[in-house]
């Protein structure tokens, strides 16, 4: 079984389209997952929401991210740039789009895989998994063999044996990392629409259960164009700049 997981699209149309094309170039996956944060930061929320709805109608899974929640519920407990983008987004999308975001679930389970945007530990509180401790708390909040999260925009894999501390691994771009028969795994997907690991190329996760492999696939896209649109839309300049440097 092949699974493609797209996290943190953040209203970045160019990255989203490039990634979807790359996904289908590799043959249609058996499961397509949108792992939250469809909107926020980027200039194309309507396009991304409608595309997501379309993919869901074709069977894709989609869960809620903190930016989706903030836009849907008009929350303001975020950093300045994020807050600004939330308001900007709310002014540009229709009630039906808001409704779509509000109805997204916090997590979904499919066979032995749990999909949740931030962490299985108190998903609605949106904690960040940036170290072994938070990874351990996430894994102990679920009994799924595979937990997939996003939210940090930095790819990582944590391997866990029962009763032992998880082992952190920073997967290499486009190099398959092994999945173990014996272990549980927490996979943190890199971001489609706003990578922060120093590589501006969009990132999505490809899982192959037969081959016992997971790959962080990198897809270069026209981030100059996205940055230009961010500028033109009157969104904060840093949101365009960070797409160029991948931070």
């Amino acid at each position, binding site marked *: 079984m092949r699974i493609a997981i797209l996290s943190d699209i953040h209203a970045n149309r160019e990255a989203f389209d490039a990634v979807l094309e790359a996904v289908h170039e590799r043959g249609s996956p058996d499961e397509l997952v949108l792992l939250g944060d469809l909107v926020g930061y980027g200039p194309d929320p309507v396009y991304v929401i409608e595309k997501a709805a379309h993919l869901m109608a074709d069977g894709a899974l989609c869960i809620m991210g903190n930016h989706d929640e903030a836009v849907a519920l008009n929350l303001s407990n975020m950093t300045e740039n994020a807050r600004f983008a939330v308001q900007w987004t709310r002014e540009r999308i229709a009630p039906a789009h808001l409704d779509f975001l509000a109805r997204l679930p916090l997590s979904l389970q499919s066979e032995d895989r749990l999909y949740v945007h931030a962490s299985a530990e108190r998903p609605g509180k949106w904690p960040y998994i940036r170290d072994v401790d938070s990874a351990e708390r996430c894994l102990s909040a679920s009994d799924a063999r595979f937990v997939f999260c996003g939210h940090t925009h930095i790819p990582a894999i944590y*391997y866990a*044996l029962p009763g*032992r501390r998880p*082992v*952190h691994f920073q997967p290499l771009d486009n190099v398959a*990392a*092994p999945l*173990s*028969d*014996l272990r549980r795994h927490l996979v943190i997907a890199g971001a489609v629409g706003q990578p922060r690991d120093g590589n501006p190329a969009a990132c999505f996760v490809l899982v192959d259960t037969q081959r016992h492999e997971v790959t962080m696939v990198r897809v270069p896209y026209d981030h100059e164009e996205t940055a230009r649109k961010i500028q033109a839309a009157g969104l904060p300049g840093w949101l365009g700049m960070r797409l160029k440097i991948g931070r």
Partner: protein
Amino acid sequence: MQRFEAGAVIDGFELVEKLPSGGMASLWRATNPRYDFPLVLKIPFLDPGGDVSVILGFEAEELIMKRLSGPHMPRFAASGSLAQVPYIAMEFVAGTGLADIVGKAPLPVDEVASIGTEIATALAALHRQKVVHLDLKPENIILAERGAVLLDFGLARHAELPDLLGAESSVPMGTAAYISPEQVLGERSDPASDLFALGCLLYQLATGEEPFGRPATFAGMKRRLYHAPRSPRDINEAIPRWLEAIILRCMDVDRTRRYVEAAHVLSDLSNPDQVVVARRKPRDEGGWAAITRLFRKTDDRALVGRPTSSRTQAGPSIVLAAVDLANGSDALAGEVLSETARVLASRADSWLACVTVLKTEIIGETPATDESGRSVYLKRLVALKDWAHPLHLPEDRISYHVLEAVSPADAILNYAEHNDVGHIVVGARASSAIRRHLGSVSTKVVAQALCSVSVVRLKAVEEQGRQVERNSASEPRTVDEDQ
């Protein structure tokens, strides 16, 4: 825990005969009609509640063996899931175990060098595949007809895979007699660690003694950071200085002074006359020096130096510059020199093999045998050294080779392959009708080299190019000499 008897079948593998093995796994000769090579099954001992390192070692070995290829590793056949019956099925490699040979040490020098060459070749092949063995010892090396074959990747590390084994353990992993100082400190990613173990093996083969014994404690293993073993020639006077120099350079605690790549060890073992034998200063240790040393706080990490990966990734380790000096050092030779300097500059510890070919007309005729031939050879060697002089390389970074051959291209290719050269720089004369017809040295080198090749050509204005073409058409003898 499951016990297996001969005749049992696991996933289509029929167990035939139990082989002697260590404490981590049982080994079985096995058959399976699906594979056309002799098989052995390695089945880990997985007692419930047993040592978790057995599982971790099995996991690491399976992940790494699957990804390895080539003659210096057993072929991987299949593996069984840890969740069901765990096993690794691989090729049974026939040959002589180094463990059987090491008992007969000290061995004659040429035998030590030839075994060292085999192991260095295998290590170079392994390191090229981004794997460090980290447990090189006589029990894990088989000398087969096809060369040395390395076994047991249970402690090995793949640069692109998570180190699940290392992350779980805080104790040094390896074999006390051969473990490198940086492994003792917990580092598990440097190919130079295997070269340290190779040095220990060569030491043992040459002297009949293990350099550090077999310390059972952490403190005992750590001694090798501070105390050098007896020098090989103290134990066995028959060991030549060049071999001692190679062994001690493998075993240098400081990785900035150790060999960085197996290819370099290989090259030194096959070119003993080029090994730089450093005159080692006797340690000036008055009473005061000994006392200050006692109180000086040394950082263990500083002793073992920085990991070698920063250097190995910068550029090729061994550069071969092939230069045609038949008509003296001409403009093309100068251009080859400039390009060589650029390639060498990418890496601070790269090493240059200067090669020039003395053409012989027929096979068997060796011009160096008689007096006049000898002088031709020496003249060319002097010319070669003079050519390379502007590079100002220290003598341990450069070697000179006047090869006598019918075909310069074959001589260059042969040298490059046997010394694991990483980059060849070769000159090409301007194109001519005859050269196009017969093919040139550079064309053949480019077509057949196993590494990158820079072809250097003089930038000529069109008029000159035509002139050269006319000249070379009238002098067919120079056709092949565009090395």
